[in-house]
């Protein structure tokens, strides 16, 4: 049953209660007096109402089996109106009559009204009970819905974090490559030709070259430190996000977190370990956010796949 219907019934019920009590009291008193005869007559009367198309409980009463002007017409139409319009408790439309049949007819209509009222009350009661049930169900659904909403929210957050993070992971690789290039550019450990004693003419040039070389190395060292600092900061943020970088330097190749994109002859005894990292890899808990792409040191160049 729709909510609006229940609401409608409630308002109708409230407005009519006073009048109904009155009717009910009259009815009880009357039925005691009239007894069985009254009940027998009711069936007939109610039937005749409907045959004529007049439905005592409906506002849609169409025809009344008496001509307009007839007092019975007035009575019946008043009565129908009273039933239809429930804005204010109307007066009882029964005029004093000596005609017993007419009294019975009115009485039957009243009884019909009583019956309707009882049905309404019952329906409203049931409706309320159903509403209560529906409410409880709604609350429990809402509670379980909130739970799954939280799970959904955290799933979405993790997914978004992942896609955003992977862009930054590319930046880390750029920094890493920059650092490696700076280290490769260093001339440390190389010899600077020093002119032998006696070649004084070259001494000045040597001193200039030495100063320039030292200045160059100092600048490179500054660059190196800059890259290293940026990388350290990046890795600190990772820890904060609960993300771990797949360790590679000197580690054995692990296919669960690394992908081999090339091989290189092992120099020394580190066969099966990572020789170079091309793309850094990351894990978050059990999830591999991105496999590291590495070059693996092997004993001898690997032949092409058999098939």
């Amino acid at each position: 049953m729709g909510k609006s219907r229940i609401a409608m019934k409630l308002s109708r019920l409230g407005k009519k209660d006073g009048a109904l009590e009155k009717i009910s009291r009259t009815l009880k008193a009357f039925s005691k007096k009239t007894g069985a005869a009254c009940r027998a007559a009711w069936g007939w009367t109610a039937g005749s109402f409907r045959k004529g198309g007049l439905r005592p409980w409906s506002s849609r009463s169409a025809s009344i089996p008496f001509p307009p002007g007839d007092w019975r017409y007035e009575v019946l139409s008043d009565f129908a109106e009273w039933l239809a319009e429930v804005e204010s408790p109307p007066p009882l439309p029964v005029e004093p009559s000596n005609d017993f049949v007419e009294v019975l007819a009115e009485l039957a209509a009243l009884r019909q009204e009583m019956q309707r009222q009882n049905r309404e009350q019952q329906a409203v009661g049931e409706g309320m009970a159903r509403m209560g049930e529906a409410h409880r169900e709604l609350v429990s659904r809402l509670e379980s819905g909130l739970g799954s909403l939280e799970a959904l929210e955290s799933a979405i957050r993790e997914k978004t974090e992942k896609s955003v993070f992977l862009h930054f992971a590319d930046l880390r690789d750029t920094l890493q490559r920059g650092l490696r290039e700076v280290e490769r550019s260093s001339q440390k450990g190389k010899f600077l030709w020093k002119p032998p004693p006696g070649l004084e003419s070259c001494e000045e040039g040597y001193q200039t070259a030495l100063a320039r070389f030292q200045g160059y190395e100092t600048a490179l060292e500054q660059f190196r430190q800059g890259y290293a600092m940026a990388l350290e900061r990046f890795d600190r943020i990772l820890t904060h996000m609960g993300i771990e970088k797949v360790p590679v330097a000197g580690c054995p190749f692990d296919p669960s977190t690394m992908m081999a994109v090339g091989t290189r002859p092992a120099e020394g005894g580190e066969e099966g370990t990572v020789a170079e990292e091309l793309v850094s890899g990351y894990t978050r808990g059990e999830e591999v956010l991105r496999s590291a792409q590495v070059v693996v040191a092997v004993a001898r160049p690997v032949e092409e796949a058999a098939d």
Partner: protein
Amino acid sequence: MSQEPIIGIDLGTTNSEVAYVTDQGPEVLKLHDEGIVPSFVALDGNGRVIVGQEARNQQMVNPRSTVSSIKRKMGTTEKVRLGKEHYTPQEISAFILKALKKRAETVLKQPVGKAVITVPAYFTDAQRYATREAGEMAGLEVVRIVNEPTAAALAYDARQEQSQRVLVYDLGGGTFDVSIVTIESGVVEVMASTGNNHLGGDDFDDKIVEVLLKHLETEHRLKAGDDAVLKARLKRAAEKAKIQLSDYAYAMIEEDHVGRVRGVPVHLKYELSRSEFEDLVREDIMGTMEAVSRALRDAAVLPGAIDKILMVGGSTRIPMVSDLLEEKLGQRPHLEIDPDLCVALGAGIQAAIETGREVGSVLVDVTPYTFGTSALDSTTGTPYLYVPLIHRNSKLPVTKSRPFYTVQDNQEAVNIEVLQGENPDSRNNILIGEFYFKGLSEVPSGNEILMTFSLDVNGLLKVHAVEKETGKEIRGVVENAMRSFDDEKIDDSKQRIDELWGEEEGEEEDEESSGEEAEDVGASLDETVSKARSMMKEASEEDQEDIIDLIEKIEDARKRSDEKSVEQLREELEDLLYYLE
């Protein structure tokens, strides 16, 4: 979930997936990943079998102990080497199936013993039998072998009440198939199937890599030669660019420190346009279009007789594929369900059907309308060419961009019309927004303006235009873009037509509407009567009599076709029931 679960498996050449219909609908089962399991089997250093991504990861280090693309050998007696042993194709496939079974058991938290497995439509009986055998070896009872195009069709339309002829275009990582199937009351007939066993997205990546290598050589004099490591880096960048070009007109490929020339580090920066990429792959894609023609011929079907085109495989996201198919077959292909997972989802649906469960199709948010703009057609000169950016049935949210060019020298402004509709003449579509992009550079005609449309699930359409050369841009928003502007327009047209036709049309309409109403009454009358009958048992004796009386009268009136009385009596009966409820 007391019933024994049946899983659906897409056993692919490059990748495999397992799907299951949960309370939320069909889902590909994910285990800390995207649910895509590479069809690779390998032996690790300890002689342990590894499957999927892990096996693929170590292929370069251990090629002799790694097997891939075993599907190509299914149904043959050829054995493949894995470590020291030799295995049949069924046995290798069984390793993959076993891994998928285990995945399902982990995700569903219960044992799984039954599966539906998909195979290509062209698979012979021997190949199908081999697939079934592989399932049994993996401890799975194969309750059904389903054709891949059938599974795709199921994902799009699980109920399939009407007979339809569907063309399934499947362009994956390494294989291409096209099939035409007829689906009639659940029975699927494969009318034709053809393809190319060695064509796919990997080939397209390689073509981009070639361009990049050439660029490095001519621009930076960097010869990559056999530098496998550099090639691997470029391949990764190429794949990323290819994916980006599905939505955008340009992709910037930037790779730092790709090598050294005379001790100086070299960086790669290359802007790949969609049109350049299309030129690279045109030959291959045209080859697939020929296969489509061949399939139509084999099935003896005219393009117009195809009811639906479904796209399967990641490479079908390349816009040129959809455009060429639309040109050829006169309708837009469906791409809204993730083409990588479509077959697996269909297998999952079939599995659920096998258990007798009620299932719906895969649900995705799509746009019901096409959105585009108006431009001058450079070939015909008509100024009302409708250029769609976001096609109907695109999965939401969606972003699409396209380049446009100014027509005149020193053109200062362009008018950007945002249109909803399908008509090739932009005037017949509905204008839902209009923007002016002023202050363009004073340059000769052909100034490139990149236009981007982004549409979200709430119908918010964002428009972005940028002058490519200078980066000058404007942004606009159309709210409620997915509202049916069509209806408003139709109402307008209807009114106009009504006015022209005068009363005649009106009368006809009246008749129509009264006919509909009569039907409604008929339906609700039956409902009322049956409701009355069911409620009678509970009613009092008096009410029972009344109800019987009324029902009899209604039936009499109905026989006399006295609609007025029927209606009146029905109201009476309803009133009575109303209070009995």
